[in-house]
């Protein structure tokens, strides 16, 4: 009965319930709602499934531990995307530093790293599995500051205002970065359009 009632609440109402009454069920519903969108977002940004699952877990733990730092003036989705984005960026920078000292260099411009072979994962296999892998690889070659914006806009379908809030960048800059990212992707994926 309580579960049905909680399921009908908005994200902001759920986090408020968790803050005020420490209702773990409300937190669990939030986890259920956001685990897949965040996994998708982080995976498209980093290209490593294991790491992205760890980052999303860390995000959820941060939400649990710092629930009181959420202020109801912001949307819950922007708050949780900000946490996940910060963790993903930290991980990306860590990997980049590691790659500098590593003997192997990944990608053409040194900005990207190999995509792990996910072909055995049933949730990745599609009819156009190869095409998806090519797009993902191309996405990882886009500059990280543009890539994040493109993913949030075109894959996660967030509004420009939400992206600006998540990344802490002005809306105008967000728009220009998205277009630059799309432009880079277009150049990388020219051959796919011919199909």
């Amino acid at each position, binding site marked *: 009965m309580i579960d049905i009632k909680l399921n009908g609440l908005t994200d902001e109402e759920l986090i408020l319930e968790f803050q005020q009454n420490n209702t773990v069920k409300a937190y*669990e519903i939030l*986890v*259920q709602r956001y*685990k*897949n969108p965040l*996994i*998708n977002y982080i*995976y*498209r940004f980093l290209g490593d*499934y294991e790491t*992205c*699952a*760890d*980052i*999303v*877990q*860390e995000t*959820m*733990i941060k939400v*649990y*531990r710092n629930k009181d730092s959420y202020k109801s003036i912001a949307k819950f989705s922007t708050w949780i995307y900000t946490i996940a984005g910060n963790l993903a960026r930290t991980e990306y920078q860590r990997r980049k530093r590691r790659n500098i000292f590593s003997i192997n260099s990944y990608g053409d411009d040194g900005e990207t790293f190999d995509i792990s072979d996910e072909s055995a994962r049933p*949730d*990745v296999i*599609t009819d*156009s599995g190869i095409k*998806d892998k090519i*797009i*993902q690889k191309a*996405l990882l070659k886009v500059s990280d500051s543009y890539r994040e914006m*493109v993913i949030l806009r*075109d*894959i996660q*379908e967030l509004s420009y205002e939400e992206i600006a809030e998540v990344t802490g960048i002005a809306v105008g800059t967000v*728009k220009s970065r*998205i*277009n630059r990212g*799309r*432009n880079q*992707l*277009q150049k990388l*994926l020219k051959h*796919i*359009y011919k199909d």
Partner: protein
Amino acid sequence: MIPGYDEVRYKNIINLLKQMPKITAPLNFESDLMRRINSGNFNENYKVKWWDKLFLPSRLIPAAAFALSIVTVFYFLNFNSIEPENPFLTKPKIRETVAQTSNKQIFPAQTPEYTEASVNGSFRINKEGLNFLQIRLNAAEKAKINKLKEEIKAYFKRKQ
């Protein structure tokens, strides 16, 4: 929503991105998460504790090499240093200078005299090689001391 100019311009690329399959969380995601929360072990997977990092071979080996080099340097430095004097094996230095005050004159050691025991019961000490100070007394002080000696001798005679 009416698409803007940029949405139309990059229509193909936007469609490609939208058609990409959605990645889902692993099946045990929630159970793992709740287990971590309930155990209070929040940084189990993602972060390595600093003391764990301290004992990584990549950090431990250079630290051990540094410590070893420090020990080696100190070992060799110790060999070159002057050995400290053993106070039990060295002879005491004999004072040559003589300090003089108003009525108390300090003398170096007198000529050696050695007797086993004197007739009147007093003992003499062999003063050879010793470096002690002797105070010169005036006539009044000597008389006072002699008087005291006589009193002590008389006391012991009475006792006997």
